[in-house]
């Protein structure tokens, strides 16, 4: 399929053709990382109002060099030029399990939840990430360039998360941030998974978390004893919890129901960690409390099923949180069956039709998502010095019938052809 309005400039096509003829196909990937100019009828920089008839230049280092009106930005010689009706920053999926969870959904590609123990914050995401998983490529074709992924919901502490770009043949090539948050879950979904060790009730789950936080606080204090003989042996689990307590790693707490959200806020007050609420399908009933706590929300996918813990989810929650001034991002989330991953572009689209403006919805999957995962200095908006990550569309990004026609990561065109 090729209904692209995205087109290489004629000069670029010629030179690329010459390259192919003279030097063969093998050299083409190297040319893709050359300097890039992207022309947009409308550019949503997410760092100010949308620009009409704009140009973005991405330099050799993969960083944005210049952004401005076409009339004032000269495209240097040798830059490959792409054009599109609408250009946005590369999309940021604020919470995913992709790469740990694969498309096939069998044991061998499901690493998002270890069930030997309900508290395992020491599990690192990078030790389980498959950069070549087909779902990573799938998300990339729909404009997603940055993924906050890792251990999933379902355990009191399931492990750590990380931030990657949706490219590379290995986690090392994809990695942006190796340890981003510790994933925690409150509520009935934790029960029954961990043979003999599961909390049987909501209250028991909270008690188990409080106990480990207190233990880790002790551990951290003793590790700094002046007398080295009094220091406890290194403990990876308590070390990770201590990093939550000292603010190095925010607690990403999946909490859907009113009582779970309140428990998360209560834990945050008691231990003073940095809290990011996740899922939060009943958060619209607690807007004042969440706002007062100054806690951001990575909201469930807009189209999450109205069943189980998310039975009271609404299509309008992102709009309600945003209206209250609560920072909100959207996520692809975790799916036990299908779709094995959701696509944040589609989730934001439905939010845009249900209470968010187009730019607010775009913010939930670009700059606001980047801020919540702590990567707004690199991604989430199109500004000089930031990563040259772009998504090129042939129409309104949120229309079902529009296409993503090219995706750029750090100046490299990683997806071409309209999807």
């Amino acid at each position, binding site marked *: *399929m090729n209904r692209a309005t995205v087109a290489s400039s004629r000069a670029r096509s010629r030179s690329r053709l010459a390259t192919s003829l003279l030097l063969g196909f093998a050299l083409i990937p190297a040319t893709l990382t050359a300097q890039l100019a992207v022309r947009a009828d409308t550019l949503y920089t997410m760092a100010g109002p949308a620009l009409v008839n704009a140009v973005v230049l991405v330099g050799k280092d993969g960083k944005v060099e210049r952004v401005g009106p076409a009339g004032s930005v000269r495209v240097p010689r040798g830059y490959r030029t792409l054009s599109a009706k609408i250009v946005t920053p590369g999309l940021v999926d604020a919470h995913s399990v992709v790469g740990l969870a*694969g*498309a*096939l*959904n*069998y044991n061998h590609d499901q690493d998002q939840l270890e069930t030997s123990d309900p508290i395992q914050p020491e599990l690192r995401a990078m030790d389980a990430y498959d950069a070549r998983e*087909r*779902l990573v490529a*799938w*998300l990339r074709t729909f404009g997603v360039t940055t993924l906050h992924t890792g251990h999933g919901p379902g355990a009191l502490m399931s492990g750590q998360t990380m931030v990657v770009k949706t490219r590379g043949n290995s986690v090392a090539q994809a990695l942006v941030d190796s340890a981003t948050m510790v994933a925690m879950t409150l509520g*009935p*979904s934790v029960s029954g998974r961990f043979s003999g060790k599961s909390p049987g009730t909501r209250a028991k789950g909270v008690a188990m978390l409080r106990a480990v936080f207190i233990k880790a606080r002790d551990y951290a204090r003793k590790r700094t004893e002046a007398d080295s003989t009094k220091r406890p042996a290194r403990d990876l689990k308590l070390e990770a919890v201590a990093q939550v307590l000292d603010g190095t790693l925010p607690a990403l707490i999946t909490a859907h129901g009113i009582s779970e959200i309140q428990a998360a806020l209560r834990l945050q007050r008691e231990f003073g960690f940095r809290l990011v609420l996740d899922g939060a399908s*009943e958060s*619209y*009933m607690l807007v004042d409390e969440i706002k007062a706590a100054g806690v951001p929300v990575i909201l469930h996918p807009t*189209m999450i*099923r*109205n*069943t*189980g*813990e*998310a*039975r*009271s*989810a*609404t*299509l*309008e929650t992102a709009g309600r949180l945003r209206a209250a001034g609560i920072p909100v991002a959207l996520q692809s989330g*975790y*799916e*036990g*069956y*299908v*779709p*094995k*991953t*959701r*696509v944040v572009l*589609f989730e934001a*689209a*439905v939010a*845009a*039709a*249900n209470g968010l403006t187009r730019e607010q919805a775009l913010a939930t999957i670009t700059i606001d998502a980047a801020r919540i995962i702590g990567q707004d200095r690199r991604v989430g908006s199109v500004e000089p010095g930031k990563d040259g990550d772009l998504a090129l569309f042939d129409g309104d990004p*949120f*229309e*079902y*019938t*529009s*296409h993503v026609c090219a995706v750029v990561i750090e100046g490299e065109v990683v997806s071409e052809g309209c999807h």
Partner: protein
Amino acid sequence: MLRHAVVPAALVASLAASAPAQEPPLVLRGARIYPVSGPVIERGVLVVQGGRIVAVGSVGQVPLPAGAAVRDLSGKVVMPGLVDTHSHIGEGDGGDRSSPIQGDVRILDAIDVRSDNVRRARAGGITTVNVMPGSGHLMSGQTAYLKLRDGRSINDLLYCHDPLTEICGGLKMANGTNPRGNPPWPGTRGKAAALVREKFVKAVEYRRKLELARTDSTKRPDRDLEMEALVQVLEGKRIVHHHTHRYDDILTVLRLQQEFGFRVVLHHVSEGWKVAKEIAAAGIPCSIILIDSPGGKLEAADLRMETGAVLDSAGVLVAYHTDDGITDSRFLLRSPALGVRAGMSRARALEAVTIAGAKMLDLQNRIGTLEPGKDADFIVLSGDPFSTYTHVEETWVEGRKVFDRASPEDRAYATGGFRLMRDYEAGDDDDDFGGER
């Protein structure tokens, strides 16, 4: 509410015209109308009376009946009510775990028509639905064709009048990995096909005995509920709705169809794009599930958004379904829209959630287009049917409004949140999310 008599299509128009006017006719005027049976009408008029469509046309060209209630729908879009060929709304189930083949089981005996997801379906603009038992059996039971009238019991929603004398749905079958297991479930694909063939061979024999009994009633076999259903299948009166994903499983269905001559609709067809020619040559329609990413299981790993376009251009009749709760009834229109994104024409995509589905359920004489004489099942949209920003504002079944976004209660079913207070009051603690189907 009262249901309308099922009458042959040829009689419908004359009956509608001569029906005693217990209600004044309703005229909906000014909307952009997609009749699906013909080109779009920019400023249309739809005239409804007695539960049926009396006239469809352009403003100024359709005579307005005397005494009509006239509503102005300028700026809105009107199209036929949506047909969902494959859904699990109503909390029903079919066969149990006793056997992989249970053609005698009727899902109509297990449907709760007051369920929340029935109301969500109305909020999504769905007016006709094929409610299916699951895919964990080779044959999980008889499906039910429902009209989503605002009724109190299953009888109010069934298309058929009398389940004892009429066929009220199709027959659900499945192959591939879902209906696999320990005996008596099949462990391999070969065994699955053999079990199904054995059952159909038995049905052929049963039918032969019934034929012999026509002249000699002493030869009449004992009643067998499953055999009766399968004879209906063999006679083409009951349509097989067959869950199938992988290309070779699709071909297996075609092979069995050729052997026994039944009518079948292929459902899901994740790899249908790989065997479009074969499906087209067999003349078998396809009802597609469109999922936001491939996988969930190996046999769906090659699912593509292009399947609808590929099958359509090969000449296959194509519909989209929700498989609710796999996708949500409120988002049925999203599937053909994404089909358009992946190359399908807008016209075919509209047919794929209206008349194409109606044909797959043998209901094309009653529903699926806006034509005089057909049931007055239609939806009012705020904008283009394939736009993300469009909402279903009203859903009408047989001339009665069954969903109105302007009503706060109905709106809660469109946007969500309807369960919150009620569930807390009832102490409902169901924990059914994320389960494997």
